[in-house]
């Protein structure tokens, strides 16, 4: 009897030990990856934003080289946004809205300082024809591998302006400035060579937007309609949101200019609002930092409502210089060894287990893992350095554990039924 108890105790000690080792090594492996560092910083940033009372403001400025004194400009934009704050729940990245003299203006300004602007390649123009009303000329604001991204109702809105192709063609044909160019694409390239690109949509009437005009650098483009302003959309969006202007905001709320390969290779500064745009930032780091051009001199500044800089800024900046995705492989090896030993131990002890003990044995690692998660959750609330917490309890570690846990259940199933 005594022996049996001792054996049982030994089993659970071995189980706990191997689980703790496996989980710890998984986390260590994750923490050693620098992509995890970026992810941790972003999650931490997000946690901070959410815990703020006024979550409307979290501002970031991304700059390449040289540093053009973005803080000054940032404050200007902040002032402007504060004025209109009452009207909107959230703001577009790059979308500055103002409400003056009865006009609702949405100006999307790229290039907010007068030092360096994104020039020739800021906008790649591609025409994309789709069924029904989606025939359009899009202005994708970023490219991957030199291929313009296809524009759709949804991602088109993310990317920026949406202009009816037939209308644009007509305009291009009638404008003397385009006479020397053969293709529409080239024409628009020329149009966008100007130092600053401004896309404007304005309306005289707030509720009944019959009078929307679009312009690029002050050149009239289309006032018939674009996809999001067709009658059907108006009808539905007005029904849903009760206010047509919100649908504008809905479609335009995240211009994903942060992805632009060319922006960063040319050197520019952008001020943006990342509230509700966490995904953009996340994608940005995943897509952009891996490239060589972002590794040198990329400067990211993230501010809170008071205009104070966040600590994550340093993490992200230094990380962009030493970005690598491979972790310390020895930790991965140790983690898998521990989990393998854990799974093997079940087979070893199998015959001496009652059904209840079997279940307890399988669930113990999960319980230990859950306990760790409870601690993580509690610390998240009471600790200020969330970044460290996210880095330690990283998702790579969680993933490795979940896989090991699934494998162990599978092993138990096989062992119980077929061996």
């Amino acid at each position, binding site marked *: 009897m005594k022996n049996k108890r001792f054996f049982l105790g030994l089993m659970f000690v071995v189980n706990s030990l191997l689980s703790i080792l496996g989980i710890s090594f998984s986390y260590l492996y994750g923490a050693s990856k620098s992509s995890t560092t970026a992810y941790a910083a972003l999650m931490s940033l*997000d946690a901070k934003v959410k815990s703020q009372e006024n979550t409307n403001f979290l501002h970031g400025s991304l700059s390449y080289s040289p540093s053009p004194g973005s803080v000054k400009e940032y404050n200007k934009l902040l002032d402007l946004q504060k004025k209109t704050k009452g009207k909107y729940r959230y703001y577009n990245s790059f979308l500055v809205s103002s409400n003056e003299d009865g006009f609702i203006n949405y100006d999307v300004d790229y290039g907010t300082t007068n030092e360096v602007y994104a020039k020739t390649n800021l906008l790649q123009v591609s025409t994309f024809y789709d069924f029904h009303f989606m025939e359009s000329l899009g202005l994708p604001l970023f490219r991957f591998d030199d291929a313009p991204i*296809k524009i759709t109702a949804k991602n088109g809105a993310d990317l920026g302006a949406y202009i009816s192709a037939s209308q644009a063609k007509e305009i291009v044909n009638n404008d003397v400035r385009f006479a020397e160019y053969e293709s529409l694409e080239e024409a628009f390239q020329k149009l966008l060579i100007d130092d600053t690109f401004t896309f404007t949509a304005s309306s005289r009437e707030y509720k009944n937007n019959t009078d929307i005009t679009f312009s690029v650098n002050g050149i009239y483009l289309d006032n018939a309609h674009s996809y999001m302003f067709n009658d059907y959309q108006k009808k539905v969006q007005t*029904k849903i949101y009760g206010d047509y202007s919100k649908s504008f905001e809905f479609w335009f709320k995240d211009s994903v200019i942060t992805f632009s390969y060319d922006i960063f290779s040319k050197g520019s500064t952008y001020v943006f609002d990342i509230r509700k745009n966490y*995904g953009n930032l996340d994608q940005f780091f995943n897509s952009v930092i891996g490239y060589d051009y972002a590794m040198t001199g990329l400067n990211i500044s993230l501010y809170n409502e008071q205009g104070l800089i966040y600590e994550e800024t340093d993490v992200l900046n230094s990380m962009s210089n030493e970005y690598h995705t491979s972790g310390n492989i020895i930790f991965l090896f140790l983690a898998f060894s521990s989990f393998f030993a854990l799974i093997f131990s079940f087979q070893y002890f199998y015959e001496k287990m009652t059904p209840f003990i079997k279940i307890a044995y399988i669930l113990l690692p999960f319980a230990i893992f*859950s306990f760790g998660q409870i601690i993580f959750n509690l610390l998240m609330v009471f600790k200020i350095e969330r970044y460290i917490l*996210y880095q330690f309890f990283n*998702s790579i570690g969680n993933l490795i554990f979940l896989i090991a846990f699934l494998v162990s259940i599978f092993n138990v199933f096989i062992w119980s039924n077929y061996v």
Partner: protein
Amino acid sequence: MFKKLTIKMKAKFSSLETTLKSIIFALIPLMTFFLIMSDRKPYNSLAFILYGIETLLILFFIIKYHKFVFDVFSLLLGFFVLAVLISQLTNFTLIDFPRTILLLSIFGIIFYQFLITLNEEEKHNVYKLIILGGIFFAIYFIIYYFDDVIHLRFNERLGGDFSDQNDLAKNLATFVILSEIFIIKVKGKNKIIYIISTFLFLVLMLLTGSISNLLVLIVLSAALLFYMTKGKQRIFVTIAIFAMFLLFIVSLQLPFMSYFRTRLINMYNLVFSESGKIDHSFLERTHLAMYGLRLFISKPIFGYGYNQVQFYTMGKDAFSHNNFIELLASFGILGFAAFEILLLYPIIKNWKKQKKELAVFSLLYIFVFQIFLIVFRKKIEYFLIPLAFSLIDYPIYKCYTLSFKNKKIYFSKKNYSEPLLSE
């Protein structure tokens, strides 16, 4: 005819108990009508009022004539609510606790109390009344969108004024499945009613332009035919399904079906072809799901809490458009397991049992449709899940009962060989 009806009516309203029961029954189609549109004003307020009245009526009915029964359904639903609560607690967002889920769960448990006092036929009548509510809605839909409906404008994606089109289509598709079962089961002239209603729901579902529902409905309708037939019949069914499939392909060539043709071709291109246009809705869903999965992996046990996924989905303010992933990301493994067991338990218990097709297939539809949309906080689920649970035949029925006698409350554990009818 009229005399018969008067006698029937008199019998129904002869005592308070039968009167109450009739009113509770009568409210079901109305509730179905409004629950479909409960995302939009002013229908949501009406739905809320109707749910409230029905809940109070059932409460009164149970307190006066029956007992409260807490069994496996209450337990599993309780687990789900608890998992949500734990998730909110660990994220310190208790204040954002989803009241919808709480209210719907309370309604579900109370509605279940009423259902277990009914006999098999009456339970089937509840399904019929749900279809009736669907027919009311279909008529309203046709009147509202008359011009678009008669011109069969599929590409307009009608129904946005009532609810999200995919959600609306899900409800309609559920009605299609229920009507299909009645077509097979019901004999005589009544069959025609269900044939017409199936056709009606199907056309309206197509008018919403929901591809996801169309795909799930095709698969489940075929499965249903297989499920409900045996031996030689199956050969005919297989041929019929094949013929229907061909007919569908042919119908896609018709001009007014161009919307579906384009989208299906685009979907095919996305997966199998490197050239041609792709279906962005499909692609977008995959991206959203990936985001949800990442969230799940960073907090696998408790998740991020209710309504949090939208903050991480590339600024789109969108949910993950996949119930499995939304549950995993929001409430972690605990919430996920609790909800899936709630759906699967009645399916497994009623599987291949006589006269249980309604329970099995209504929930199976919801189960499969989880791939495409969020269902855990929708009203129709809290109608169909209790119904499916109430149809389970328990060999030994273990439960706790709460009863009122002599102005005292009794709480007792009991085992029944039959669900509570005779009590």
